[in-house]
């Protein structure tokens, strides 16, 4: 083979490889989504969520739902709300501090801690929560057990580093002349942050929050060790056990005893996929409109 022939063979091989990599990935993802839609779409409906209980009674908590997803879905929603209530203010505040106020050394040190937290496997976070209970049981509260509050705190810790980083990046990514604007007009640092930086970076921060919500909704490993159970109805207080959608999926996949339960598993998986998908699309769109504006 001449050099030119070898060359064009290599070129063809490279092109073929790249195209197949893309095709393979595309097929795999579409297979996952397609399979779920195919098997799960049929199950969608009021019965999937509320079983035999009328939906109004179920929503108000008047009657418990026995064979529907409602308690799992409600559990997930409550978990997301609780953990975000805790993590979002702290995360955004931390990100603001790191981007606007902190010295370079401080940024580096705290940045490392934030990265460390971001890298902690979720099961280790769950283990941490679990060990808190073990410690508490020996020390102060012999009746301490894993519960909704514990899970919410652990998930808050899980999503906190992402919030800090996305806020920090959104603020630091603002063009320089905007960051200098406030000071040049005589604003103090906080005035500049509040009136100039935060409104301008608002969308980036918002999309970070939405992504964090998605992360909180899909997590399974943390809740596995901090209080999720297969059957708990609606949690009446922060100290109760609770159900969650991802756990329901896992549980049913492993231990379904009938076709009906399997169908519910598919329905649950589809619902979770739609939930995280919706959050993702929202965050993506917000991010895109922001980029458009600053690119002009």
């Amino acid at each position: 083979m001449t050099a030119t022939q070898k060359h064009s063979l290599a070129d063809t091989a490279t092109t073929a490889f790249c195209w197949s990599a893309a095709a393979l990935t595309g097929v795999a993802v579409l297979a996952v989504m397609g399979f779920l839609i195919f098997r799960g779409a049929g199950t969608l409906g009021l019965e999937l969520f509320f079983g035999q209980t009328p939906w109004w009674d179920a929503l108000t908590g008047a009657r418990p739902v026995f064979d529907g997803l409602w308690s799992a879905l409600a559990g997930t929603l409550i978990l997301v709300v609780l953990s975000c209530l805790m993590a979002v203010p702290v995360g955004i505040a931390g990100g603001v501090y790191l981007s606007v106020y902190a010295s370079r050394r401080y940024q580096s040190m705290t940045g490392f801690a934030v990265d460390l937290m971001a890298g902690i496997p979720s099961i280790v976070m769950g283990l941490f929560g679990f060990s808190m209970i073990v410690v508490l049981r020996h020390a102060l509260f012999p009746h301490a057990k894993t519960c909704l509050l514990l899970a919410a705190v652990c998930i808050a810790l899980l999503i906190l580093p992402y919030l800090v980083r996305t806020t920090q990046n959104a603020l630091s990514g603002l063009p320089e002349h905007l960051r200098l604007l406030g000071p040049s007009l005589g604003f103090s640092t906080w005035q500049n942050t509040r009136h100039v930086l935060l409104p301008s970076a608002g969308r980036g921060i918002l999309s970070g929050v939405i992504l964090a919500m998605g992360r909180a909704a899909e997590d399974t490993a943390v809740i596995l060790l901090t209080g999720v159970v297969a059957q708990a109805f609606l949690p009446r207080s922060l100290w109760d056990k609770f159900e969650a959608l991802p756990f329901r999926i896992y549980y049913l996949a492993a231990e379904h005893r009938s076709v009906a339960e399997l169908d519910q598993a598919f329905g649950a998986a589809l619902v979770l996929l739609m939930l995280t998908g919706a959050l993702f699309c929202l965050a993506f769109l917000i991010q895109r409109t922001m980029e458009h504006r600053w690119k002009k």
Partner: protein
Amino acid sequence: MALPEPILEMRDVTVRFDEKIVLDRINLRLGPGELVMVVGPSGSGKTTLLRAVNRLNEEYPGSATHGLVRVRLGGHWLDCYAENFPLTDLRLRVGMVFQNPNVLPFSIQKNLTLPLCVALGMSKVEAAQRVQRALEDVWLWEEVKDRLRHSALTLSGGQQQRLCLARVLALDPAILLLDEPTASLDFKATRKIEALFQSLKERYAILAVTHSLSQMRRLADRVLILRGGHLVSELSRAEFQNQANCLEIMEEFF
């Protein structure tokens, strides 16, 4: 012609960023009603010079400024870097316009009233009363008076830059610092703003940076040539008015 008492003075000002010397022993004086321009090749420290006056260099980590920078306000000399001269006060009296129009993503009205409310502590009503005068000062009133509530982002580049200027003027400064204010504008907008500067010169002392030698020839009363952080020459209007002279001088220093 006797020189009027200066309003800004810099003596032996040296600015370092992390041990690297960006400005080396700069001396300059600026009088009221003067438009002094600073020119020089890229990286010669022009922007740093401007920022040394309103202490904006301190927003960057690792900066260190030595030497004297003082302004004469209300008849008294005030050291810009003194402990008892609050940063915010300094920046209200020394206004800055940047190269890129940095309007905020709010309405035109809010772009003007926000600094008044936040930096000067005015009430919204008081601030709103100043809007018309500020816009008239920059010849923008007729163009935008019907759409004050519209987003400032809908304005053209030249209009946005004039809005930024209005924002600064509304704070009633004594000195204006202009950092290549027409660099991002087209020809027509540039001419309009240059005419504006000519008229503003009477009320404010202006220190401006420019890349354009023709702009320098059109506007400047005096020119300071900066190279590698050093002030290598100072020219009066008479000296650079002559075209041949001007080219020769520029060749020499660039």
